[in-house]
């Protein structure tokens, strides 16, 4: 029996909560990446870093939306969306990179490095705020949350 089968239980959208928090931190992280890319690769670096940040954001948002939706449906849907979503998102990334690779304002090395650094940077930063407990399944509790749940 799944959590979704229990009467009156709605699984929390932890993925959305995590990604929303990651994007909030990304607002602080993005200017640093853009600045470093500009210093190293010039204007092409800035454009490439901006594209990389947009791709990482879109990738995380799609993953969170798909998994949150599938968790409400069934375990089979969760498996299908996880694996199918991975293939679909990599396919989308491939299409975008193939479309951009010959553009004069794109530096593929800068784009690639910014893509990996932004993705991993956001994830590692988020790890500090993740709570893996039954009471708080998503993020670590804030002072407001602690006041509500004894």
């Amino acid at each position, binding site marked *: 029996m799944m959590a979704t089968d229990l009467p009156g239980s709605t699984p929390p959208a932890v*993925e959305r909560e995590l990604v929303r928090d990651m994007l909030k931190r990304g607002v602080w992280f993005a200017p640093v990446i853009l600045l470093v890319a500009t210093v190293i690769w010039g204007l092409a670096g800035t454009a490439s870093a901006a594209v990389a940040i947009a791709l990482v954001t879109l990738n995380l948002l799609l993953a969170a939306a798909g998994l949150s939706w599938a968790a409400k449906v069934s375990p089979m849907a969760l498996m299908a969306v996880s*694996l199918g979503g991975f293939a679909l998102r990599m396919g989308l990334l491939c299409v975008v990179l193939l479309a951009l690779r010959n553009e004069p304002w794109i530096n593929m090395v800068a784009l690639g490095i910014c893509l990996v650094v932004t993705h991993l940077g956001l994830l590692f930063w988020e790890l500090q705020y993740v709570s893996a407990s039954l009471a708080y399944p998503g993020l670590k509790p804030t002072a407001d949350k602690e006041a509500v749940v004894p």
Partner: protein
Amino acid sequence: MLQLLAQQAPGELEAGLTAIGRGIVYGGAAIGPGIGIGIVVGNAITAMARQPEAAGMVRTTMFLGIAFTEALALFGFVLAFIIAG
């Protein structure tokens, strides 16, 4: 006729080998994360089935596991495009 077929333009061999190399790099880098994500999600579903009240916690770990595994695919993907130049 065979001589005509065996002729190649300068740089054609290099371009062909680069394309094959790119395919191998990306193919290899996509297989590993594919298997990894399958294992992560499969075990998460088993955990949720055994302990439904822990579903939220399990999904948090699962999402982070998927995201970290995906980073490996991104490495291969980026490398494949850098090889292509």
